[in-house]
């Protein structure tokens, strides 16, 4: 596979899926500016590392992996924990019942450790196959299956305690 061909293929993927990559980056950093920076940096990194890619089938999960790693690097540097968005703050002040449910639900996800959160996002929100998730996170398929199972359990637990305590501040 020539570099030119790989570059063409990667460009095509990026242009088609840029919104997915952006949302994925956003799910880690929770603000538009940093998410845009991560998308940008991921593209640079991918273009630089293109030589090392030898299997065109994997180009999709390969780029996902770069986005995930760039986002994780960013978080490590920033040492961010959880960040509430504006809209959620508005909900907090507006005090609507159904809004709280959404907030609980999202907080339950946010409170998961990153390694569990990201399998849920990749598998269910990005609609990737277990094999692809494994490829992106550089783990074997069984590890991802176990992790997904645990992630769902944890999420369920978070939701139940959230409702039991009535997380309404």
């Amino acid at each position: 596979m020539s570099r030119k061909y790989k570059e063409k293929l990667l460009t095509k993927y990026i242009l088609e899926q840029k919104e997915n990559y952006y949302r994925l980056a956003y799910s880690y950093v929770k603000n538009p500016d940093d998410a845009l920076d991560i998308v940008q940096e991921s593209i640079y990194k991918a273009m630089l590392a293109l030589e090392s890619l030898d299997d065109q089938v994997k180009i999709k999960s390969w780029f996902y992996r770069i986005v995930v790693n760039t986002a994780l690097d960013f978080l490590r540097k920033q040492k961010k924990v959880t960040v509430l968005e504006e809209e959620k703050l508005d909900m907090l002040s507006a005090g609507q019942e159904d809004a709280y449910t959404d907030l609980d639900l999202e907080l339950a996800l946010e409170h998961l450790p990153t390694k569990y959160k990201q399998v849920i996002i990749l598998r269910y929100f990005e609609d990737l196959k277990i094999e692809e998730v494994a490829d992106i996170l550089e783990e074997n398929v069984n590890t991802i299956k176990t992790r997904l199972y645990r992630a769902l359990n944890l999420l369920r637990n978070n939701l139940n305690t959230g409702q039991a305590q009535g997380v309404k501040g």
Partner: protein
Amino acid sequence: MDKELEELKQRYDEIPIPAELDVVVQQALKRSTPKRRRMNWLTGAAASALLLTTLVNTTPTIAQSLAGVPLIGSVIELITFREFVVDEGTYQANIQVPALRNLDNKLLESTLNEKYLAENKQLYEQFMAEMENIKVGGGGYLGIDSGYEIKTDTEQILAIGRYVVNTVGSSSTTFTYDTIDKQNELLITLPSLFKDEGYVKTISDNIKQQMREQMQTNGEKVYWVTDAGLEEEALIDTFESIAPAQNFYINADHKLVISFDKYEVAPGYMGVIEFVIPTEIIANDLVSHEYIK
């Protein structure tokens, strides 16, 4: 659980896509610019102000990531709220917008923060407009560097100095200050320190005296002031008086410091100039010795 996951996925899909994404992706693919030009203004001043008041004031985690500087003896913090960077060859802009956090006096906090944001936004927009003009005219150099420094940080006083350095051929520098009483969370203005307007003359006279003394003892110093041995042709626009709201701050020794921008009262090589006013000179004019000792 399926219902919850579906709902979560829906929320995920609703993450808004910023209009900039296309440009960012295109530019990155072309590898044309090493740094993304950070145009962080969402939609004009209103949105920015909203962002500022809601995010900086109410979500500590956001501001934490922005290099917070906790100040002595208080929970008040000064952070870099936004940065605007243009890095395009001969066009260079580096604008850092400060913001205060954790003041109980929210009115003061938001007034200052909104001022910082609005003024820097204006700088940035001017820069972008000038850059386009210069590009149309065949190219050239344009640079702006704006930021802030903490001039004083004591138990009682916080003085923030904000500078703007314009570089078009030669450079010009301006400094503006905000002096805050940290204990009472008040913004201190120059007139508020004095009983009446008499201070303008008292301080002006003292500065002229200091200018003349400095010129006598140090041959390299030059101020645009009369009776200091300058030839008459040089005395076109001499320093006569400070403005009632002249740039000032209070330093850590409780002394009043009066500041002049580059070129304002002296040749350019003298840069930004500060005069420390001896407290005994203004003792009779001061309302109290609360701040100035």
